[in-house]
């Protein structure tokens, strides 16, 4: 079954698959940004009816974000993982809410913590953080220690600190 999926995608998107790794009941695709939506759509047609997670990695040295979509097929009990790199300067990508409605909250979380824009997502309002004015906290160039020391501790205090 895994090899069928692999060959079907390879024949349909010969230029867009950068790397395919399959092991046991899991298959991972690294794909180009231009065709990632069509590939996800194709995978949904194959039978991946559940989107488990949409997460992101900040590759600051390469100035790229990597978005990772975890898919699950209830019928075949197979996991598919789709990885797509997007430029860090313009982190905008098409939303997959049209394919899986459950993507809405995952994308909202990524929008808040990484600052990635999902075009077509109906609600990207703040989720966990309220009144946040800094850069998104999960980005690698956000200095957590510096922010915490400035916001929560007095200037002359050393940290870690336990006030008496």
């Amino acid at each position: 079954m895994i090899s069928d999926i692999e060959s079907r995608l390879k024949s349909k998107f010969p230029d867009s698959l950068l790397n395919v790794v399959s092991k046991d009941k899991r298959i991972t695709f690294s794909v180009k940004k231009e065709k990632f939506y069509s590939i996800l759509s194709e995978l949904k047609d194959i039978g991946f009816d559940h989107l488990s997670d949409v997460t992101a990695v900040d590759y600051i040295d390469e100035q790229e974000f990597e978005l990772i979509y975890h898919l699950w097929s209830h019928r075949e009990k197979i996991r598919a993982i789709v990885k797509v790199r997007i430029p860090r300067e313009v982190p905008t990508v098409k939303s997959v809410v049209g394919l899986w409605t459950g993507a809405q909250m995952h994308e909202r979380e990524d929008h808040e913590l990484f600052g990635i824009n999902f075009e077509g997502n109906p609600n990207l309002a703040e989720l966990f953080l309220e009144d946040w004015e800094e850069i998104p906290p999960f980005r690698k160039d956000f200095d957590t220690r510096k922010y915490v020391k400035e916001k929560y501790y007095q200037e002359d205090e050393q940290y870690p600190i336990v006030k008496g």
Partner: protein
Amino acid sequence: MKKLTPKVIKSKSEARAWSVWVINYFTACGFMELLPWVGSGYDMERFGILPVPSPRHADVFIIAGYVTTKAAKRIKMIYDQMASPKYVLALGSCPMTGGMYWDSYATIKRVDEIIPVDLWIEGCPPKPENIGHGIVMAANAIKGGLKGH
């Protein structure tokens, strides 16, 4: 056989001390250590302590676990709804020092910057015995005339 005589409650503060109704705000592991008190194991009802569903009925506000910046606003809202006299009990290291979240961007480090805290039971998390000690201390303090806010 010894004759049992009913105990006479002499003052208003003593009556208050043995009829403490609590509203709980639990975000993390602190509640796991308070659970033996809620259940029949340690049974906090023998001290007259009763969990109530509304802050408007409560005398004591128990905050256990870390307080995120988002939760801090809700804590202030709950506290403002409570009727006087009201007491605040912080449970565990997190609400008063940040605990293991001392370097987290999303948790506040001292809850007493938002609302006044009367008693802090230290620990990460505190043991049920420590919590019981704290509860009895709090009851004695109320009996002795601790006014609250």
